[in-house]
């Protein structure tokens, strides 16, 4: 009976871990888009000095294009690397903490977009 309970608990934990991983994957992409938006808005707040074709706006657009690639790689790393890490460290303190921190950063980035 206890073996059956453990298996059931394990299944719930596996489902939880997979669910959290999927959540981090989805949020990664939202977070990247949001981060780029936030960067653009901060850049505009400090340096924008004219319309769309002003040097500052064009520089901001250039910056966004430049950041897109490294942030894309980061997204892939979080997705694949995260899956590997959580598989290897399943149901350990480190794994749950990493989930918490990853989701913290992602939700933080989404929240940042609300204010900035």
């Amino acid at each position: 009976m206890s073996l059956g309970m453990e298996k059931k608990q394990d299944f719930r934990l596996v489902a939880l871990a997979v669910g959290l991983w999927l959540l981090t994957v989805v949020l990664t992409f939202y977070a990247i888009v949001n981060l780029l938006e936030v960067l653009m808005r901060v850049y505009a707040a400090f340096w924008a000095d004219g319309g769309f074709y002003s040097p500052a706006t064009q520089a901001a657009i250039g910056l966004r294009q430049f950041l897109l690639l490294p942030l894309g790689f980061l997204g892939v790393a979080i997705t694949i690397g995260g899956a590997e890490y959580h598989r290897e460290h399943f149901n350990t303190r480190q794994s749950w903490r990493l989930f918490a921190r990853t989701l913290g950063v992602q939700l933080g980035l989404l929240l940042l977009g609300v204010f900035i």
Partner: protein
Amino acid sequence: MRKILEVLSPYLEDAIKMVVILFAVVAVLIFIGQKSLAVFYRYPLDYGEAPLVDQAMRLAQGQPLYRRDLATPPYTVSNYPPLYPLVLTPFVALFGPAFWPGRLISTLGALATAYFIGRIVQGQTGDRTAGRVAGVLFLAIPYVGSWSSLARVDLLALALSMAGLVVLTQHGDTRKGLIEGALLLVAAMYTRQSYGLAAPLAACVWTWRRYGWRRAATLVALIGGVGLILLLGLNLATGGGFVFNIVNANVNPYRMDNLLRNWRDVRDTLPILLALGVTGMGLCVYWLLATRKNLPPQSAPGWMMAGPYLLGAALSALTVGKVGSNVNYLLELAAALSMTAGLWMAGHALPWAEISPTARRLIRNGMIALVIVQLGFMMRGTLLGPVQDLKVRRQPERRLEDLFWEVKRTPDPILADEFMGMLTLNGRTLYLQPFEMTQLANAGLWDQTPLLESIRAQEFSMIMIHHFMNYPVYTERWTPEMLDAILTYYIADEWAGESVIFRPRDAAVHPSRTLTACAHAPWRLPGSADFGVWWLTQSLIFMSEGFEGTAPVYAVADGVLMRPGDWVGAVAILHDDPLRPGQKVWTYYDGMASAWGERSYVAAEFPPGSEGIPVKQGQLLGYQGTWHKPGMSIWPHVTFGVAEPLHADGGFPLHLLTGQAPSDPEDPHTFLDPSPYLETAISSPIMGTPVWFPLHCLGTAR
């Protein structure tokens, strides 16, 4: 579900911590961004910067700072004790009279203050995250971000006072620690005198509760003794000038509306910090009472320091109602609120003796979540407020460069207000600090007669009067007598960086101030132009002195007036054209409304919808206002234009105002050059080219 919550709940704090770290990083980046715009900007960013650089220049030249006798020039006062100018002096000697060293000192002062707040919170609570976030909170407060960009005394004073509190909380049990702490607090007071309240009060209360009344009394004696000895020494050395400069010269009138405006701003900007501060004060009172009754005297939680400090800072902040005050009066309050928020985040010394770890964690996470929201609002506020203000201040950089060279070419003496810094940048000491001397004159502490005589004798080759677009700030900086003398004996000659440059009036060229019409002109002038005339978009803008709604606007000639229903601050009059007999001509008067068009200054007898009302030359049409066009206000003015009637029906060519194409392409009306009608000279008669010029007549004035 319960199982899932059991697994995840211990890690909730990790997630919240990541959010707050992320917000803190962005807040610090915004702070750094502000400094990147401000610190090495060459020109003045604030009225108060140049006097401090001037004081450092005087110290470098071995001149006295605190003169008691102000009967002779320079008419300057040193409002603050000497520490900041003393720190600035070596930089001035080494790098010249630039602003960046002062701004760098302020920036470092802000960073040091944030660090010390963190040290105090961490020292009291043992919570590193709470300490760090409290420090970042301080940097994120919009007042701190904006003021630490300026070469002003406040952030150095705040950093010194915080350093004193750190030393006292960590080493207050030793004699050396007590002396060092007291000296740092005195140093803060000798940087800015108002820092003699909050930090010393907090230090004394905390020392009293932590180490007993004897040690607290020693601290009071140290602070009071050293402070008093320095005061007496400096006052004796300056023949009473020290007290006169830092006390008497600071007693400006108090305006309750200033206080209320600032209070509303603090309430809207820092609502969560204020709530945490008020409840923190409650905890301080609780602990004061509790330790008196139940706890050993050595028990002194951080609230014993934060509470009195907040109380002192709040009392200090009340002086923000003084005329000429600014957000620097709120910096101690900002530090105090950051400190109390830090203590709350650490869940420090909560009054419930038996609180469960879960409840403690809940309170702590809840507080951090509140702080995250507050950080978000402050970052947004900084980006929308101080950062945009800074950009606006930097906007006229090219014109300021012209002004810099203009000042360089112009011989001494020169008077200036907002851009006194152009003088110090040119290595010249100040002749007059207009705001401070005006306050002294208003208080009956200074006789302005010698200065007025110098103005009337046209001893000054140039006078620069600054004028923010939405408020005639010069009315607080110059006495009415000074303004009257300047406007009578000098003429508004040029405009640079929102400052009007006055040069001595040459009676042969420039009409008198009371001019109503130029000789031989068929028409009279529509209004006064004490602050010059602007040729803009094919019309003449007459700029008057004073507040909106005070300078009259008159009909230039007899005619028939109309005012369509949607004209808030404008009227138009149809006249017989004096230059083309038998034809008609329209004159157009605009700008007779408040900045956003909510108040009209057009005379009551011409309500919206008026048509065919006969008016006489010189009849009052209304008063100059600040409305220029939707979304843009300028100084009190009237916009005056002259236009041909529409050929079809003699009506007013409305398309000239809207910028739309005329309904009849064969009838391409434009505004006419008004100078032949007024006999005034327009320096650059290129239609549509904006140019600022002094009002002068082609013939003789009448």
